[in-house]
Structure formats: structure tokens, C-alpha cells
């Protein structure tokens, strides 16, 4: 056992000096490897953290949200629907939600307006994103442009906590009656309904009853809402595909570079090693160690940089991609989350192809006939 360890240590020493003799090339390989890992890991860490956040934040979302569709388009929902649903067995409460979108031409941002209780008619509570784009603070006056084109001024009663930015960034909370007059929505009509179901396991049953009871009703269970966030950035989606394709391309280039053969100098060295008594297996061990040095180092560096990028630098490089054309976007200060399974998968996804690319040309070279060296 000790001899085995000493053997590998000695081979490792030689592998390190071997890599050091071609510093530039090997430094470049290491950098590419680390970059590929960085890209993949950044996307993975980011999406995992986002999904986790969604699960934590939205676990208290309504068990069921019911919408109305007319001719395939979203429509307002009447009070009779709320009463009808309240009468269903299993439903503990039904609340009509009144909310909508507002485009602000001054800031070119979209806000989500919600009608709530407990806010005076001339006042609004705004999310931190709204405060940021408008420059408004508590106590200031903020003008909103109604559908008719007229501006209406409100006093900012409160700026919602930035801790809640991930759910509240673009919110504008307004008195419900005021919202109705602002959007000209008749009383007795609601945007949708939030339905509470006492027994979690009955949610789908209730959803089914609602769909049968009310023609045009579309019931969305909470589980489905959360599943939407699970599939966010899944591999089919643009961002993941782009990152993955880029990474695969980079790796292909690296593997090709490795597989395109050994230089004359490297071949000579292997010939010498064989001639002085190294077996084929010793030469392979050497090449494997060379590969391992690069991949183990590259992985660690790439992973650490990705962690810092996503959680310490707030995914600075990914944020613009996510932002798209939004004017208003929340601060991506995600809570660090690392799924060990993903890290291990990423490890094998990068180390294995690289090692294979290292091993194949090495095998050919390692079987060099030592006698050939005698003839040079």
C-alpha cells in the first residue's frame, strides 16, 4: 500500500513538472476548463437558488386560484362565482382578488396594481422596485396615468420592505374601491378568486368541481404554480440551452486540442520513459495525473468563482440576460443554496469527458516501443 502511494506521489511530481514545462499551454487549458465550469455552475447555482426561493416564498400562496376565460381570453369574474364556490364542500373560504397591470410611460415600466383593505383612498403602498424607478419615497406624491390618459396623484404611504422585493418589487397597493374607479371596473367584478381549501389533498377535487360548476373557469392549484418555477430555466429554455451549448462547444475545442496528438517533444519523453523502464501502465498513470491536475484544479476554481458570482456579486453576469427588456427588475440577492447532487453531477460531467480526451491519445503514445528510442 505504501509503495503504491509513493509510486503515485512520484508520478504526480513528474506530472507537475511535466505540465510546468509547457506553462503557457497548460495555463490556457486550465483557464478554459475553469471558465466552462464557471458558466455551467453559475447557471445551475442560480436556477437552483431561485427555485428554492420560490418554494419558500410561495408555500403560502392560495391553494387554488380561479380565473375566468371567455373565448379563450382572460375575463373578469362576477361575485356570483365567489358565492357559488364558497358553497362547495371542502372550500373553507373564497376571496375575490382585484388587480391589474399598469404601464407607466414616464418610467416605461410595468407595475402590478392591487386593491387591498386598509389603505386610504388617496394613498398607495409601493414596492421597492417602483420606488427605485420613480425615485419616490415615503411621504412623496406619485402620479399614475389612468386608462383614460389622465394622471392621478397619490401619496406614498409606505415603501414595502426590500426583504420582500422578490415578490413585491413592482407592486402598487391601493384601496380597492379606488382601484375600481381607476380602472373603471364595475363593482361585483373581480380579476380572479383565491380559494382556500381546508384539506390539501382535496385541492384537485375542488378544482374539478369548480371547473364543472362554472363554465369558463380555469382553476390553478398551488402545486402547479410551484411546478412552474421548478421548470423555470429547464434545459429547453433559452438561457440554459445557450449556456450549455456554449459550454459543450468550449469543451469540444479543449478535447480536440488534447486529442490532436502529442508534440514531438512529448513523444520523445514518453519514449525515454519506456526505455528507462517505465511500463505502459506507468505512462498512463502519468497522463491521467496530468489530466486530473487540470480538471481537479479547474473544477474547484470554476465552482468557487461561480459561487462568488451568484451569491456575492448577485449574479451580475446573468442578471442582464434575465432582465431582458424589463425596466423594473428586482435585486437578485438570492439566498445561497447549493444542492450537493448538482455539484457532484457537474463534477462528473466535466471531469469524465476531459479525462477521456486525455487518455485516448496517451494510450497510443504509451505503447511506443522502447527499442525505437535506441535508434534515434
Amino acid at each position, binding site marked *: 500500500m505504501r509503495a503504491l502511494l509513493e509510486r503515485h*506521489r512520484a508520478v*504526480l511530481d513528474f506530472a*507537475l*513538472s511535466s505540465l510546468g514545462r509547457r506553462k503557457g499551454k497548460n495555463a490556457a487549458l486550465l483557464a478554459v476548463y475553469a471558465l466552462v465550469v464557471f458558466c455551467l455552475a453559475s447557471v445551475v447555482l442560480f436556477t437552483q437558488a*431561485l427555485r428554492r426561493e420560490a418554494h*419558500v*416564498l*410561495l408555500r*403560502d*400562496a392560495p391553494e387554488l*386560484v380561479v*380565473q375566468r376565460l371567455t373565448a*379563450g*381570453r*382572460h375575463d373578469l369574474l362576477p361575485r356570483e362565482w365567489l358565492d357559488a364556490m364558497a358553497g362547495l364542500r371542502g372550500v373553507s373560504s373564497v376571496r375575490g382578488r382585484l388587480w391589474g397591470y399598469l404601464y407607466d410611460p414616464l418610467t416605461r415600466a*410595468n407595475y402590478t396594481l*392591487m386593491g*387591498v383593505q386598509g389603505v386610504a383612498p388617496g394613498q398607495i403602498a409601493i414596492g421597492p422596485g417602483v420606488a427605485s424607478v420613480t425615485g419616490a419615497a415615503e411621504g412623496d406624491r406619485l402620479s399614475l396615468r389612468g386608462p383614460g390618459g389622465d394622471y392621478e396623484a397619490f401619496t406614498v404611504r409606505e415603501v414595502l*420592505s426590500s*426583504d*420582500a422585493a*422578490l*415578490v413585491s*418589487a*413592482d*407592486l402598487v*397597493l391601493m384601496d380597492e374601491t379606488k382601484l375600481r374607479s381607476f380602472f373603471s371596473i364595475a363593482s361585483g367584478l373581480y380579476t*380572479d378568486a*383565491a380559494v382556500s381549501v381546508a384539506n390539501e389533498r382535496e385541492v384537485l377535487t375542488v378544482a374539478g368541481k369548480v371547473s364543472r360548476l362554472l363554465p369558463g373557469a*380555469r*382553476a*390553478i392549484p398551488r402545486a*402547479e*404554480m410551484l*411546478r*412552474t*418555477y421548478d*421548470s423555470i430555466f429547464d434545459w429547453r*429554455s*433559452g438561457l440554459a440551452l445557450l449556456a450549455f451549448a456554449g459550454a459543450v462547444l468550449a469543451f469540444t475545442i479543449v478535447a480536440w486540442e488534447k486529442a490532436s496528438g502529442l508534440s514531438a517533444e512529448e513523444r520523445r519523453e514518453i519514449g525515454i520513459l519506456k526505455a528507462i523502464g517505465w511500463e505502459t501502465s506507468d505512462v498512463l498513470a502519468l497522463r491521467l495525473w496530468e489530466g486530473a*491536475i487540470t480538471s*481537479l*484544479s479547474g473544477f*474547484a476554481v470554476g*465552482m*468557487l468563482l461561480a*459561487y462568488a458570482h451568484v*451569491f456575492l456579486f448577485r449574479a451580475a453576469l446573468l442578471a442582464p440576460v*434575465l*432582465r*431582458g*427588456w*424589463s*425596466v423594473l427588475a*428586482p435585486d437578485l440577492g438570492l*439566498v*445561497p*443554496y*447549493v444542492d450537493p447532487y448538482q*455539484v457532484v453531477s457537474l463534477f462528473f460531467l466535466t471531469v469524465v469527458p476531459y479525462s477521456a480526451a486525455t487518455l485516448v491519445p496517451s494510450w497510443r503514445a504509451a505503447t511506443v516501443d522502447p527499442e525505437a528510442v535506441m535508434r534515434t
Partner: protein
Amino acid sequence: MSRPRPSTAFLAWLALAYALLGAAVIHAHLKQAVRREALSSATALVRRLGLTDLCLFTEARYTRHPTQADSFAAFQDHPGAREHFPSGSLVSPPRRVP
């Protein structure tokens, strides 16, 4: 008179790097525990207002509330709207709700 072996330095560097990775995992774990309390204001808001979505993309309706959208929401604006907003390619509406 022996210089430190290259393998010693390398193994030390590896140990450090992977220890740092381990520390990052622990850091994340601790942050999760701590933040759960700090998230209480957010979860309170979710409960109070019955919120259903994270505010990630405010470009369009079906990107702002992806859980509420259906496959036709994009077309409600314009037949070609689906490809219109960049973030539309990142999120899809709930799968099992027709």
C-alpha cells in the same frame, strides 16, 4: 537540502480549494437557516395579498405572472408576441393546467 516536493504543494492547494468549496456549502446551509426568518416579511405579504408569483420579469403579463398564464396569454397581445419578449423564452406557463 531538499526543496518541497511539487506534489506536496499541489495536494495542499487541492485540499485548500476543496475545503473552501466545503465551506461554501456550509455557508449556504447556514444562510438558508438564517434567511428563513428574514423572509417572514415576504411570506407575510404573500399570505396577506394572496400572491402567486415572484416578480422576476416585468416585461409582459405572461412573464410577470407565469403561473397564471396559459399558452394563449402571449397571443392575447399579438399573434407573434410569444417570441417578442426575451424572458418569454425562459418561462413557460403551468403545464398541467389547460
